[in-house]
């Protein structure tokens, strides 16, 4: 059972904290919802991508003449169709992208840098013809040595992905190129001093594998470029304004000439914050003069879209015998994939964020390898670094015989804690989640023979950003809510609730819509757990804008000053000396009178949302380990997290459960398997094992509410933090069960069994 309460940041609320049926639910369960691949246009062509079979190869030449000669083929595009772009970094999710790299990622230029890298694309009358055409394109490759592992890629003699890349962030700048794109460092205090105060110092090295976001809907889009240089694009994305910007840049268009509509989305988790097919489809449509639809197969999704970074993380933590952590130090080496831009920076920022420390040093390396360019994945960068830190913290607790929750409480970040990455925390809920964990029945429940229990905490900072919203009042008093952030986690329901609360109207009278790029001002994408917070803030502002207009009209009708009108419970009332003088005018009354009183009502907001509240969580997990097969079974799992205010508690619970399940997959089974030529061997859900329903127990949730003071209803982002603690919590539970700590993920049956066998052999010897 989930313990939840209504959000009461500013006193009692009527709608915030309730659980109405989601507005997009019926269309989804009946199949009416239109996802990326569900649009068909007259004269539509099918676009297909030819992908590199090599992990690393120079492209000497591309000959498409035979493909172009095939009946039914309308056009072929290659690197020659895209203008080269200079280095320019722009935000995409919580990460940055460089246009020089984006143009090379969507279509290989000098070299193919990973197996699956697009090399050419075809538009043809059918999928069959398009496939035949791909086979007729002759690419002359010079195959080069490749490198997949982050440590190998950092070696002085490693094959170079970009022969001119000089490491940034190092003084003086290196003279020789390398695969290390960037070095970042975050420091607080002096770790040498901190370690000198410590009675116990533990240092350990960890590794995590790249994992895919595993969204069920593959990338898909349809582009329609017209003769006058305008274009429409329909696609599955977390941010259609960002897609518009990227595509306009790559195609040399004005942004106003490209209208992008976000389809219903079948999962994103950060992976749909970048472009893959979209610029290619637009280019094929421009060249062919016909609409072009492109959809990736699952295999293409695995081979060519962004996983989370695989990492090596070294952590050293010092502590007194009384359990006070005196210093934390870490070195993070993150795979970026074929182009720079791993989430090593957020990894560094989050590593020690759950702790109130005086001395911290974290150094991060952004390292290129011949794999697909990594993309954001739920709290990008944080799960990997916090896995390492939370494992060592658990070991420290064991070393002094202190309860791991107690140890965390003793050192927990709280209001006033200065984080190593800069900010001083406002009200945050880590202590509250730890207290809930300690008090939870799960934490005290007896374990069965052979089982183990683990806990871990996690942190994500969350973001705000540029956001627009409008509320259009219909003539019957119902409202169309238009937001610019695609709904990947129930945000339409949450936005309607916030609008209903602000206006004092029934939530059923508000119908939400994700507007296309021409209906709203620029709105940053759905990412960084920003949507319920930032679009929520915009909706509240738009509601206040509408209330102001409504009060003005009521004042006009009653012929009294506007400041003598108040808005309460969904109606305008005369206030002050006029109180009770006139009958209140409801939203429906004023809507009906709109034409006679000055015209329609539209509430608008365009904001740059600031003050996203960070979210902390603490997870408790029980595991059972089959000593003969190495299988780890999750027996029980509880997620406790600070949501600020849970606007729609069911969706908050869903986020907590979903994050935990993805973390369970990351911890236990998910990994990319490559052959010795750098070719992916498991590009499908059969052998890339995300958990299925029967693999996990019902995930219990506890929502803690420490309101975020910068949001009118106290909202914090909740979507990302829950994927942070699972890996460490499970590793800590396995350690509790076996007395054996796993520092390399995944803890798959062969690895666990091998460790058990090695231990048996060691014991026998």
């Amino acid at each position, binding site marked *: 059972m989930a313990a939840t309460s209504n959000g009461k940041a500013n006193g009692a609320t009527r709608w915030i904290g309730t659980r109405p049926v989601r507005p997009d639910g019926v269309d989804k369960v009946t199949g009416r919802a239109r996802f990326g691949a569900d649009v068909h246009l007259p004269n539509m062509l099918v676009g297909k991508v030819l992908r590199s079979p090599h992990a690393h190869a120079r492209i000497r030449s591309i000959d498409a003449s035979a493909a172009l000669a095939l009946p039914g083929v309308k056009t072929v595009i290659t690197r020659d169709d895209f203008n080269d772009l200079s280095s320019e970094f722009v935000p995409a999710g919580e990460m940055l992208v460089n246009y020089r790299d984006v143009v090379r990622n969507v279509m290989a230029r000098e070299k193919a840098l990973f197996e699956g890298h697009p090399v050419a694309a075809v538009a043809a009358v059918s999928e069959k013809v398009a496939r035949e055409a791909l086979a007729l394109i002759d690419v002359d490759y010079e195959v080069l040595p490749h490198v997949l592992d982050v440590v190998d890629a950092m070696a002085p003699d490693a094959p170079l992905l970009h022969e001119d890349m000089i490491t940034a962030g190092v003084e003086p700048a290196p003279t020789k190129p390398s695969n290390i794109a960037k070095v970042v460092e975050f420091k607080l205090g002096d770790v040498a001093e901190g370690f000198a105060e410590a009675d116990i110092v533990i240092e350990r090295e960890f590794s995590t594998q790249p994992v895919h976001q595993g969204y069920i809907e593959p990338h898909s889009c349809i582009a329609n470029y017209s003769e006058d240089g305008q274009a429409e694009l329909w696609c599955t994305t977390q941010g259609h304004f960002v897609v518009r910007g990227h595509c306009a840049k790559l195609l040399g268009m004005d942004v106003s000439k490209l209208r992008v509509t976000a389809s219903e989305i079948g999962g994103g988790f950060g992976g749909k914050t970048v472009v893959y097919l979209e610029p290619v489809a637009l280019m094929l449509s421009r060249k062919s003069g016909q609409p072009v639809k492109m959809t990736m197969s699952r295999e293409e999704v695995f081979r060519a879209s962004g996983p989370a970074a695989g990492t090596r993380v070294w952590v050293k933590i010092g502590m007194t015998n009384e359990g006070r952590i005196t210093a934390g130090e870490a070195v993070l080496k993150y795979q970026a994939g074929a182009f720079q831009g791993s989430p090593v920076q957020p990894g560094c920022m989050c590593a020690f964020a759950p702790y109130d420390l005086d001395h911290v040093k974290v150094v991060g390396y952004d390292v290129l390898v011949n794999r697909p360019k990594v993309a954001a994945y739920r709290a990008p960068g944080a799960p990997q670094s916090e896995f390492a830190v939370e494992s060592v913290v658990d070991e420290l607790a064991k070393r002094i015989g202190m309860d791991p929750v107690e140890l965390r409480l003793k050192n927990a970040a709280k209001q006033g804690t200065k984080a190593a990455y800069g900010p001083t925390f406002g009200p945050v809920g880590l202590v509250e989640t730890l207290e809930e964990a300690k008090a939870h029945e799960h934490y005290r429940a007896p374990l069965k023979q052979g089982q183990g229990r683990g806990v871990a905490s996690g942190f994500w900072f969350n973001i705000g950003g540029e956001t627009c919203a409008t509320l259009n009042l219909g003539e019957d008093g119902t409202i169309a809510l238009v937001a610019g952030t695609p709904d990947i986690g129930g945000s339409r329901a949450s936005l309607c609730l916030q609008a209903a609360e602000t206006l004092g109207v029934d939530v059923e009278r508000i119908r939400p819509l994700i507007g296309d790029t021409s209906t709203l001002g620029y709105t940053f994408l759905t990412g960084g757990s920003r949507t319920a917070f930032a679009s929520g803030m915009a909706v509240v502002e738009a509601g206040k804008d509408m209330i102001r207009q409504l009060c003005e009209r009521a004042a006009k009708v009653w012929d009294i000053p506007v400041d003598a009108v108040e808005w309460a419970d969904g109606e305008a009332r005369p206030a002050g000396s006029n109180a009770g003088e006139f009958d209140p005018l409801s939203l429906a009354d004023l809507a009906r009178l709109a034409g006679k009183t000055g015209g329609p009502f539209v509430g608008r907001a365009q904001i740059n949302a600031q003050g996203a509240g960070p979210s902390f969580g603490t997870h408790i997990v029980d595991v059972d380990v089959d000593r003969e097969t190495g299988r780890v079974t999750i027996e029980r799992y509880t997620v406790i997290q600070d949501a600020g205010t849970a606007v729609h508690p069911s969706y908050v619970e869903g986020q907590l459960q979903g994050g935990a399940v993805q973390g369970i997959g990351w911890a236990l089974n998910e990994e990319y398997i490559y052959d010795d030529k750098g070719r992916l061997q*498991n590009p499908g859900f*059969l*052998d890339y094992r995300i958990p299925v329903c029967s693999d996990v127990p019902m995930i219990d949730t506890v929502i803690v509410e420490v309101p975020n003071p910068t949001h009118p209803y106290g909202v914090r982002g909740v979507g990302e933090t829950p994927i942070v603690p699972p890996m460490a919590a499970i590793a800590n539970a396995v350690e509790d069960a076996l007395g054996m700590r796993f520092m390399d993920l995944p803890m798959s049956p062969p690895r666990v069994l091998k460790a058990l066998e090695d231990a048996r052999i060691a014991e026998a010897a």
Partner: protein
Amino acid sequence: MRYEAPETIEGAVKLLAGGGPRGRVLAGGTDLLVQLRASMIAPELVVDIKRIDETREIREEGGRLVIGAAVTGAELGEHAAAKAMWPGVVESAELIGSTQIQGRASLAGNLCNASPAADTVPALVAAAAQCRIAGPGGVRRLPVEEVCTGPGQLSLDDGEFVVAFEFPERPPHSADAYLRFIPRTEMDIAVVGAGVSLSFDDSGRCAAARVALGAVAPTVILVEEAGRALVGTECDDAALQNMAAAASAACRPIDDKRGTVEYRTKVAGVLATRAAKIAAQRAKGAR
């Protein structure tokens, strides 16, 4: 591609032996259609055998169970007599894929896809099931373990197809069991599979034992040594340990994306032991 759905065995044989390019037999299609979609195969002829009555029936012929080639896992799972006589075979069929796949997937399809990891095959081999094979020369019988000769390879001649599976008579105090290891709990392919069929005499000693392993060699293997380790014993821990050692010793697996040689070899013995315990318990419970 030509699709045919004959209603008689003779009709199917005629199509398959037609002298043209070799056709593919379609039963449930849960492998064939996937391979077609993935462009792994491009047959010119597909012969659907589901309209042939003999492929769709579960019958008892003089105390022996006969299961049609195209009977689905779901149908088998609801057949009380089949479950009572061969619980291991039925549970192996019910492990394939998902509920949806269960509505289509068949024993013969699972066998003739010729994957060493096929779930039903170790159970069928342990059960000493025979294939009833129709072809231009009439009907012949072949032990299940002789049907596959390697991954993707069958010993069937042109024009031949599996019509049904015939099971031996079941003496009292007999039962079978099948276990597989997958990293998930469902929707996966066996890393190791173990089928065990046991018969006990009235004194509780093992009178007959067959142990078959999947995914540890190019084909499913019948491990006679492992069976022999149990015969004459009460399937006590020592006998089970000998059986497990024989099972592991018979493994000739490969390292691949689903498991290592070391892992498969070790777990084969573990699963064979666990399956034998279940079979013994069932056999003794049925006494």
